[in-house]
């Protein structure tokens, strides 16, 4: 319960800071932060809790976004239908990818997710008739939430719901099962756990959340273009989880906030922000391998 209270406090702080102290620009960043918090936390379901390194999270983000855009274009469906459908389609793809993925071993698994990510990107950018190719597809704003600040509150509420859901999930029996697999898969199998089914469910849920984040992103930018869904985007989501700390509830949240907001604060140094970003990733993995949340809890334990 303490975690849920903290989530609400954090959300309220974000809302106050961005609407009272900042204008549209701060709200804009706050929206992107919320979307990436969902992404990083959902990736952590498979990465932190089951130890699967996935470089395909931006692909699921894209699948969700394009599902919403294509449904809106071809059937005129609204946000309230597109959001669950985007999650379902992304979750389905996650499940389908999981079937061959979970048979692969070790590093092959990471390579397979990269291959999947690249294929999704190339399909989005090249299947012009269906996805609009490089032109992308326009998305109308959500009715009733057309202003930036009202849309921000919508995204914030959805992000809070997602975080609470993820919190419950990781604290549930499924979470225990995932942790058992991460710690010792052979042992988990020996005690009669269907480890593959558990992992498959985790991957599908994680992808579904990413798809939901994609729907939110599509309505935020009011359109979809393939360049938001590259392997680089996937890698930066992985970086958020690692920077914040794997397998800790607050780790990915912290990582997403830092890595989304940091480049914005750095834009005074427009010319050097990527150099700085790359340097930070190296230094964090060298000096805080368990992520910042890990560092923090160790410091508190002391």
């Amino acid at each position, binding site marked *: 319960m303490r975690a849920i209270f903290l989530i609400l406090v954090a959300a309220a702080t974000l809302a106050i800071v961005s609407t009272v102290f900042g204008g549209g620009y701060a709200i804009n960043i706050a929206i992107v932060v919320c979307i990436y918090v969902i992404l990083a936390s959902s990736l952590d379901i498979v990465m932190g809790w089951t130890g699967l*390194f996935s470089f395909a999270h931006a692909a699921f983000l894209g699948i969700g976004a394009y599902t919403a855009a294509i449904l809106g274009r071809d059937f005129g469906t609204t946000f309230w239908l597109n959001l669950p459908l985007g999650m379902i389609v992304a979750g389905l793809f996650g499940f389908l990818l999981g079937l061959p993925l979970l048979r692969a071993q070790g590093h*092959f698994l990471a390579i397979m997710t990269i*291959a*999947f990510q690249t294929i999704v990107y190339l399909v989005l950018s090249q299947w012009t008739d269906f996805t609009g190719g490089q032109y992308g597809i326009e998305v109308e704003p959500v009715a009733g939430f057309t202003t930036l600040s009202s849309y921000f509150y919508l995204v914030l509420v959805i992000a809070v719901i997602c975080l609470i859901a993820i919190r419950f999930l990781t604290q549930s029996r499924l979470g225990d099962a995932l942790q058992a697999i991460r710690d010792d898969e*052979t042992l988990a199998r020996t005690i009669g756990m269907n480890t593959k089914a558990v992992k498959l469910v985790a991957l599908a849920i994680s992808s579904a959340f990413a798809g939901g984040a994609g729907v939110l992103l599509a309505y935020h930018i009011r359109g979809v273009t393939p360049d938001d869904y590259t392997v680089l985007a996937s*890698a930066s989501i992985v970086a958020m989880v690692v920077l914040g700390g794997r397998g800790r509830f607050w780790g990915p949240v912290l990582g997403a906030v830092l890595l989304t907001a940091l480049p914005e604060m750095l834009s005074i140094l427009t010319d050097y922000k990527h*150099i700085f970003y790359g*340097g930070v990733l190296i230094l964090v*993995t060298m000096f805080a391998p*368990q992520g910042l949340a890990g560092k923090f809890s160790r410091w508190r334990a002391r």
Partner: protein
Amino acid sequence: MILFQQFLANGVVVGSSYVLVALGLTLIFGILKIVNFAHGEFYMLGGYVAVVGTQVLGIGPLPSIVLVIVVMVMLGWFIERAIFVPIAKKDPTNVIIASFGLSILLQNIVLKIAGPEPMLARSGLPRGAIQIGNIFLTSERLAIVALAAVTVTALLVVLKYTWIGLSLRAMSENATVARICGINVRRVGVVTFAIGAALAGLAGALMATVFTVQPNAGSLIVMKAFVIVVLAGMGSIEGAIIAGLALGIVESLVTGYLGNGLRDIVGFIFVMGVLTIRPQGLFGIQTDRS
């Protein structure tokens, strides 16, 4: 048929560069088990060192190749010691993230220094086409294939007859047993990493004479190199040679007969397919890790 011959020749040229990049990666990824995303940046840096050698210093193509190898060996040595070893000691999975950071870092440092314009390394070879039967090629393209063949042969000899080759092969079989047998794993690691970096740099230098080099030149080729290594089987030198050439040829045929847009997708579809049927890779052996 005339078209087919030309497509085949194009594929062999591009495939040769894939082989060089993938060989370096198969040593680093396949044997040391380091997932190094910055391998593509070694390729890119090799290209820029060749530009510096041939354009700025004006020392001619062959001395420039030596310069590329020396610089890349030093860089590989430094990066392995200063970044990867300390990280791997604490948590090996974090190496992926560090290498991703390194890739962004190197790309953008080069962007700041050299700018975004493409640069050409001068090969000093005569310009213009050479016609062999129905096939058109340039002397530079032929030189890529020839130099790749020489390098591969040299590498095979080194791996077969020297202590480093022996230790490497032992490590690729079983790292723990190799260590027990008294192999200095750390020394082998750093030498392997340096050789891998030099191979990528060499490939980049050769390709910079034909395709120019830009700060982001390595970002796609590193993905393809991973595909090749997985298809070939982790750490398999012969496999990487075959798979690298095959990917080059398949891409060329796909471009020729199906269109350019599909070229980059085939390798990835292929690797998904192979891993679906054989989760341990094309030539890999099934092992169960606990």
